[in-house]
């Protein structure tokens, strides 16, 4: 897309970047695939991640279909589909891009934003460079400044997220979404009609339907799956059209049903069941899920916006009119969202409690990306609430690099050991049960 000539030095820098980035991605993909127990039908999801991060491809789509980059879960993908484009989640976990972005943003800015800025700066990822529009819900200060940074380089549309979820705030957000829809129409040149919106909602709705089935299956049998694989699968949703993702998930569900009928699990041992919450975990920054499962823990569930939480809340249209559908989208994007950007976010505690109940969680790892203030802020509250339940919780701060892996390893290992020793003797098996 660059028309100006690239100097050889610049070209070499870009080549270095590409090879480094794809090496990192390939390494994490390999580590993930080495973990036992991934269903065969999940392979297409891993392939998508490989295509994007290792081979540097763009999202596969028909000619002439534009992609619209989104950040955060508050930008309804339905609207993008309705305007005839494909949404791509651009929140990034790339260490290589982070190291470039490190120079563009202040030291304490969050690594996710730095990585995005890095990609934009180096301009070698078709995923980023081909976006016709980027939508940034303003969920935190870093995203706000990122919007300013990106606006100098590409088309940007910001969505103002209300601070609270009162009825007036919802009305305001509905308005915001209409404005966003206007921008989308101009970008794609397509008109949004009732039918196109209904079709779009059917697409994403189907994906959510399959996800709801998936979660039900997952709940029905402990140790059915590894959380790392699920995280990769949820990450792949960022780079696949929703209906395609749903269709692939349908196959996974079928395989899981067979597994359940055979009572087949990823492990016969009673591994400590861990829930991961906090800042988003985005491929290739999946070191924490990997560490948990490599240390003989099971990532039984996650409450992160790039994981289950981002997609699982369904859109519930109550009114069948166009406006009613828009309202249902606005409500879905705000009310059930337990993002700490909202001033009062006690609902997150309840969500965690419910997940602890659903997945028989024994310990919670609270992940904080360095500089992710809003998540860090909520740690106290959640620690207190979980303390009352007697569920151990640790806070893990991490950055987009591999320097802190040892630090993380020590903490995660000690945490898993703690859970194992906490079980009362009659439940506690011998060491062999754990390490087999």
């Amino acid at each position, binding site marked *: 897309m660059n028309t100006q000539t690239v100097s050889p030095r610049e070209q070499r820098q870009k080549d270095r970047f590409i090879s480094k980035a794809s090496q990192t991605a390939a390494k994490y993909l390999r580590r993930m695939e080495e973990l036992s127990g991934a269903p065969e039908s999940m392979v297409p999801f891993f392939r998508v991640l490989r295509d994007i991060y290792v081979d540097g491809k763009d999202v596969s789509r028909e000619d002439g279909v534009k992609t619209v980059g989104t950040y955060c879960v508050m930008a309804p993908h339905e609207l993008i589909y309705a305007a005839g484009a494909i949404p791509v989640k651009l929140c990034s976990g790339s260490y290589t891009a982070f190291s470039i972005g490190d120079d563009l943003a202040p030291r304490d800015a969050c690594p996710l934003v730095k990585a995005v800025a890095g990609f934009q700066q180096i301009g070698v990822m078709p995923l980023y460079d081909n976006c016709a529009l980027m939508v940034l819900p303003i969920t935190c200060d870093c995203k706000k400044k990122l919007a300013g940074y990106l606006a100098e380089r590409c088309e940007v549309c910001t969505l103002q997220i209300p601070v609270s979820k009162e009825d007036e705030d919802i009305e305001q957000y509905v308005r915001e979404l209409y404005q966003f829809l206007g921008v989308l129409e101009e970008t794609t040149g397509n008109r949004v009609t009732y039918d196109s919106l209904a079709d779009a909602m059917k697409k994403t709705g189907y994906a959510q339907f399959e996800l709801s089935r998936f979660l039900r299956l997952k709940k029905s049998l402990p140790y059915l799956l590894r959380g790392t694989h699920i995280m990769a699968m949820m990450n792949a949703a960022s780079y696949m059209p929703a209906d395609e993702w749903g269709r692939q998930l349908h196959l996974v569900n079928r395989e899981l049903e067979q597994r359940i009928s055979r009572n087949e699990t990823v492990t016969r041992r009673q591994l400590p069941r861990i829930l991961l919450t906090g800042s988003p975990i985005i491929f290739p920054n999946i070191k924490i899920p990997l560490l948990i499962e490599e240390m003989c823990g099971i990532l039984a569930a996650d409450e992160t916006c790039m994981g289950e939480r981002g997609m699982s809340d369904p859109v519930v249209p109550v009114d069948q009119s166009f406006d009613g559908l828009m309202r249902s989208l606005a409500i879905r994007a705000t009310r059930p969202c337990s993002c700490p950007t909202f001033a009062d976010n006690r609902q997150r505690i309840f969500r965690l409690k419910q997940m602890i109940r659903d997945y028989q969680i024994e310990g919670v790892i609270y992940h904080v990306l360095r500089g992710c203030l809003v998540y860090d802020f909520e740690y*106290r509250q959640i*620690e*207190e609430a*979980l*303390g*009352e339940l*007697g569920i*151990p*919780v*640790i*806070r893990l*701060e991490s950055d987009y690099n591999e320097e*802190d892996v040892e*630090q993380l390893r*020590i*903490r995660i*290992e*000690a*945490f898993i*050991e*703690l859970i194992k*020793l*906490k079980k009362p003797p009659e439940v506690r098996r011998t060491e062999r049960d754990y390490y087999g």
Partner: protein
Amino acid sequence: MAKYYIGLDGGSTYLKAAMLHEGAVVDTMVRNTGIDNNGTAKKLVEELCRRSQITQRDIGYIMATGYSRKVLEVADDDISEITAHAYGVRVTAPKEYRPGMIIDIGGQDSKIIYLDSNYAVKNFSMNDKCAAGTGKFMEVIAGILETTIDQVGPLSLESTAPCDINSTCVVFAQSEVISLVARKYDRRDILSGMHLSMARRIIKMMKKSEKNGDILMTGGGALNTGLHRAFEEELMKDVYVASHPQFNGAIGAAQIASERG
């Protein structure tokens, strides 16, 4: 004949060893870690045997803990330092201690471990990648004030008006202390202020939901009477000190070894 059990604690600067016999601490020993962790550990084990006049056959089980626990091949197994500390206090805590919280101040990190009434670990928190609130921090400040790490505690107890030190980072605290020195503050007051600031920083790490039981200090930092006092001042309650604070991890490992062996 009852066996001997050895716990090895491979810390960041020192390798500590403790030997247990019939539930009591027989001997403890410390060495610089050096480059060859495993070699140092081997030498330590030999030394311990020689001092107690036993042979390697009398040793029932060796348990390793600490950062370098995975490389200590002399050990039969390894355990995380959190668990080791929790076991250690069963031996080292004073009789009247009701298990609640352990504050461990080591060479390069500090951690808080929460125990239930049966000494089982309920939860823990560790400081981040920063040396503030650790033994290293104390060493650096002691160096500036031309004193030794052993003198830091007694000196600070003589202070009447502790200075205000806010920095939480070793590097910044260093320059803050230097500026205080330049402004002719008494070094006893500076030390006292430093202890209070360290205590505050560690207290910040504590989980609000864990309030039961007493507090016990372990790790090399517990030997510092000034820091101990600072904790008592800031927490406004009694803080106990373990009997062999810097060997608590090693003793805990030995204790686990005795259960295994």
